[in-house]
């Protein structure tokens, strides 16, 4: 071993790698070609599938510390804390049950009325629960990786919610994982409606987890701070009526035709842990259903 070392040293002290620049050029050209193909034609999805499956154990491993911390705090919580939490949950369950009773009657009534109107019936939707695996490292691209994939029946375009409201939709599926785009991603637009007045517009992502932008609302439109925004069901991706955000700021500029309106998402997008994926909503099957006036 020791005898071999000098030869090694001589080897790289006096040899300048003459092809380094050429090598770099080739690799860069290959990268650019791959990026173009991936971005424009999505032709590399098969290769990505294979690599993503191979990397899955790693991503799972990366999540372990967080899981361990959760497990520890769940297992070593004090008795008093647990009792208090239990009482709180019990109270909440009673409250929710009461609400649910009301909902059942309302749902039955709704179905009856809808059948009278011969319009589409809102059947209960199937829900798949996925957990967060990773967050995009690019702070301006709000994509998250979930631990459910094609094998579990996830498909592109599936709406994703959390307990509070809409968080985004699936943009890519791998065999074991899926990527979701959040509603605050700068490239995402969500058709919404102001719940109080029914005014329709879009909620555009801004790249900030706390902000959605509402374009094209005229200056004389009735929008107030605190108004709830819900999905309008236009575009056919999202079912109607799920909460999206609340209006946080309304500015009327007399010089411009539209008001400057900013909303805050109801879902806490920067601390997502579990995500509900809706099975294709019945509303989505009939995007052309006119909304009753």
């Amino acid at each position, binding site marked *: *071993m020791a005898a*071999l070392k000098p*030869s*090694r040293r001589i*080897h*790289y002290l006096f040899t300048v*790698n003459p092809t*380094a*620049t050429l*090598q*770099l050029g080739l*690799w*860069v050209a*290959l*990268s*650019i*070609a*791959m*990026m173009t193909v*991936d*971005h424009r034609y999505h032709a*590399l999805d098969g*290769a*990505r599938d294979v*690599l*993503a499956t191979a*990397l899955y154990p*790693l*991503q799972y*491993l*990366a999540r372990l*510390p*967080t899981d361990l911390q959760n497990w520890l705090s769940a297992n070593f919580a004090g008795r008093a804390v647990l009792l208090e939490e239990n009482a709180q949950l019990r109270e909440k369950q009673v409250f929710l049950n009461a609400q649910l009773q009301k909902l059942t009657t309302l749902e039955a009534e709704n179905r009856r009325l809808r059948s009278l109107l011969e319009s589409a019936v809102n059947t209960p939707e199937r829900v798949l629960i996925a957990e967060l695996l*990773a*967050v*995009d*490292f*690019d*702070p*301006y*691209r709000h*994509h998250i*990786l979930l631990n459910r994939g094609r094998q579990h029946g996830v498909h592109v375009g599936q709406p994703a919610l959390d307990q509070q409201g809409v968080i985004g939709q699936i943009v*890519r599926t791998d065999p074991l994982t899926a*990527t979701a785009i959040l509603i605050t991603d*700068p*490239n995402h637009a969500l058709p919404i409606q102001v719940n109080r007045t029914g005014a329709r517009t879009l909620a555009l992502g801004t*790249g900030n987890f706390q902000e959605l932008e509402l374009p094209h609302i005229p200056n004389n439109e009735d929008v107030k701070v605190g108004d709830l925004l819900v999905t309008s069901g236009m575009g056919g991706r999202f079912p109607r009526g799920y909460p999206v955000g609340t209006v946080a700021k309304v500015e009327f500029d007399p010089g411009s035709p539209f008001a400057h309106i900013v909303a805050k998402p109801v879902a806490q997008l*920067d601390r997502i842990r579990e995500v509900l994926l809706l099975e294709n909503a019945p509303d989505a099957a009939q995007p052309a259903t006119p909304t009753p006036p």
Partner: protein
Amino acid sequence: MTGVRSTGGWIIACSFLLAFLATSVPLSGWLGRFWPDWVAMVLIYWCLALPYRIGIGTGWLVGLLVDVGRGALLGQHALAFATLAYLTVQTHRRIRVLPPWRQAVSVLMFLLLKQFLVFWISGVIGYPPRDGWYLAPAVGGMIGWPLLFVILRDARRYFQVT
């Protein structure tokens, strides 16, 4: 390299693996903003220490895996990491003789360039950075470099990676 056997490849692989895990740790606040790209730094280290073994090709491959792991465009980090490896290998004689804290300045430059390349590509596909914070991980990398250097150097000597 004629007839000389390379050893300790698993140490190199393990260091990249650990770096990938360390980079994936979800952090918030200031630490999260400055949390460096450990994979890029480990790549710089091996390019400095074993430039005849770890180079542009390895950098490209590692970058490709990072792309898949991060759900980025295939080739985005591959391009940046290949460039990073190229620069490090070309300048390794000048950098290697410096003490770690002075190496950190060169590392900062390399990492800034890498961040710039990655976000430049992001900008091309419609995700331009909104402010200057995307360069912060490079500064974090400069601060973390001496520590990483000492750890990897000791590991390399202990396991006789050549």
